[in-house]
């Protein structure tokens, strides 16, 4: 089976020494090497998600990069799903891709890697200082560099759970939650916990997911709301839902906007996934060089700290300080034991099967 239930964090600790060494190396880079730098482009185009996501990237990575190099960073806010066919078409037709760097989900990026449209990033100098989380699972080398992880937590309104946080997804089957729970409209983040909640095992993924679909059928009877990231924040803000399987950043966003909200990892576990950065093939040598430098700078401790403080997510560089209130939080795993109940399935298995999973989930929910 190509899945990992637990993440090995030992390399995280081992790598901390390397970070210091890398930092020293960059500071003391000989001027002769700097002179060998290719011409600087006037700007680099980075695809990003909007709102607080792009703000965090701007503060943490883009602005420091511009300050250091003088290269202007333009953030293209086209959805990652929608930029993908444009990039693929450009590479296939030997045209210059519309973006220099894609900030992408690792699952989507894996499709591009399998298709062979990603530049290899294996020799980025700062990679040596990262944890094994930076390495994409299921593909050779580093066509993508993962930059942080995130958890699909079970977010809830404490007021609706007076006896304490929900322990299991089975708790959501209580009739009082009918019409007051929410999931992503394709079920992403919920398939794997549902497999366990339905009595199945992770070893059966992807071959036999009957247990997952049986549990989804039970959840459907609860008439859940189905939406996307912004919907969850809105629904929690308006008090329209009591619980949702969602990315922790959304729950944190709602909390930061004043909503009384908490989150937990239920006994079935929670899907753990990553986002990353990658460069499409087809750029000039100089543009490629500086795009690689941008990604390299996103892997420094200083930049990761600011960037991921904005997102409330754990990074891939050792020694980061959790944002206020997130130390020891299940959505901010750092220690090996934090990962025991997190489920990580290889990107390759996900991209090979997600179409079928999405379709099956929709069939049940909309049938």
């Amino acid at each position: 089976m190509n899945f990992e239930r637990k993440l090995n964090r030992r390399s995280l600790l081992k790598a901390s020494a390397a970070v210091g060494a890398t930092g020293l190396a960059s500071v003391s880079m000989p001027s002769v090497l700097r002179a060998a730098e290719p011409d600087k482009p006037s700007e680099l185009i980075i695809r990003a998600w909007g709102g607080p996501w792009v703000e965090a990237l701007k503060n943490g990575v883009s602005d420091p990069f511009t300050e250091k190099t003088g290269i202007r960073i333009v953030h293209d806010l086209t959805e990652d799903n929608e930029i993908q066919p444009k990039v693929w078409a450009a590479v296939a037709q030997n045209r210059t891709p519309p973006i220099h760097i894609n900030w992408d989900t690792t699952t989507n990026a894996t499709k591009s890697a399998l298709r062979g449209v990603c530049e290899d990033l294996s020799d980025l100098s700062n990679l040596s200082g990262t944890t094994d989380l930076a390495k994409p699972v299921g593909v050779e080398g580093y066509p993508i560099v993962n930059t942080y992880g995130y958890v699909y937590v079970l977010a809830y309104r404490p007021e609706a759970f007076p006896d304490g946080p929900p322990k299991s997804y089975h708790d959501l089957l209580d009739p009082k939650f009918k019409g007051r729970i929410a999931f992503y409209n394709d079920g992403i983040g919920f398939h794997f916990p549902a497999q366990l909640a339905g009595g199945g095992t992770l070893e059966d993924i992807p071959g036999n997911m009957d247990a997952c679909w049986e549990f989804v059928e039970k959840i459907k009877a609860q008439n859940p709301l189905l939406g996307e990231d912004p919907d969850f924040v809105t629904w929690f803000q308006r008090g329209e839902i009591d619980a949702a399987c969602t990315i922790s950043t959304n729950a944190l966003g709602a909390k930061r906007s004043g909503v009384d909200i908490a989150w937990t990892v239920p006994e079935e576990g929670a899907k753990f996934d990553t986002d990353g950065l990658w460069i499409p093939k087809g750029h000039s040598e100089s543009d490629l060089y500086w795009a690689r430098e941008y990604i390299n700078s996103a892997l420094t401790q200083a930049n990761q700290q600011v960037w991921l403080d904005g997102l409330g997510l754990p990074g891939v560089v050792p020694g980061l300080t959790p944002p206020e209130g997130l130390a020891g939080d299940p959505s901010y795993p750092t220690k090996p034991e934090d990962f025991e109940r997190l489920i990580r399935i290889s990107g390759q298995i996900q991209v090979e099967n997600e179409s079928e999973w999405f379709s099956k989930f929709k069939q049940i929910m909309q049938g």
Partner: protein
Amino acid sequence: MRRYKTSYPISWRFMDLLEAGFAFVLPNGGGRLTPYLLLTPAVLLVGTLAVGLLYIGDSSLRVLDRTTFLFSDYWTLENYQRAFSESFTATIIWRSLAGAVIVTVVTLLLAFPYAYVMVRTSSALLRKFLLVALFLPFFIGQVVRAYGWLIILGNQGIVNDALALVGVEPLRLLFNYPAVLFGLVQYMLPFGVLMLAPALTAIPEDIEAAATSLGADWVRTLVHVVLPMAKPGLIGAGVVVMTLSLTDFAMPAILGGGSQDFVANAIYDQFFRTSDQGFGASLTLILIAVGSITVGLVFAVFGAGTLALGANRK
């Protein structure tokens, strides 16, 4: 002389200019070719669509290899087999088709009296008001309108606030099939009125007066005089509203809340979410086929309406 020049329509002058231009470029027989040359933009436009359809047809016959995310070099009917074997496809096709029919019927029922009053009223003020109310929605995009309904019909929206005043608990008015149909009717109503108004304008008021003078009350006049004469407009409006509803994306996505997908939403998912353009292309062609067959049936049963000029018009 001056008055004659003024009354000569500008469009005619433009056509004269074009004709002179063609005659200059093609002195031998340029005049005979003029009508065909004037058709060129339309032919190019339709031709572009046809070429696009050929590409989509080609894509629909190629399967995605999920280990490389490249499409097969060979043609196969696998995407169509998958589309017809997955029950979800049947669900969304029936939902889209039923929705289009319901929206068309309701829209025509609402559009007809609106258009009739707008055409027949003797009050210039009322006509202007109806025209402004008709065109105002066109300045507001479909997505913005859908989000407007989210605010109005939400749990904490105006409707639920009003219901709370009479002691009714908040109702979930959104994210269901009726909400999608409601949004579509609201979106389609101006199209329906605009298509119906010219047909009603073409009915001389004298004929209605004649029916009344012969003893018909307004109901009999409506049923036996106005509706039959307005049939071309009703069919034209019905076809436009039905095809637009059948292929709509935004209302099912926003007011359906991810639980009431139409075919267009499924196509989007395949093209952009799962990157399976081949399967998306097969769904696209199935949607085109369903739409074409439906419109063909309407024409077969009711006649081609305003779209058929002259002899075929019933």
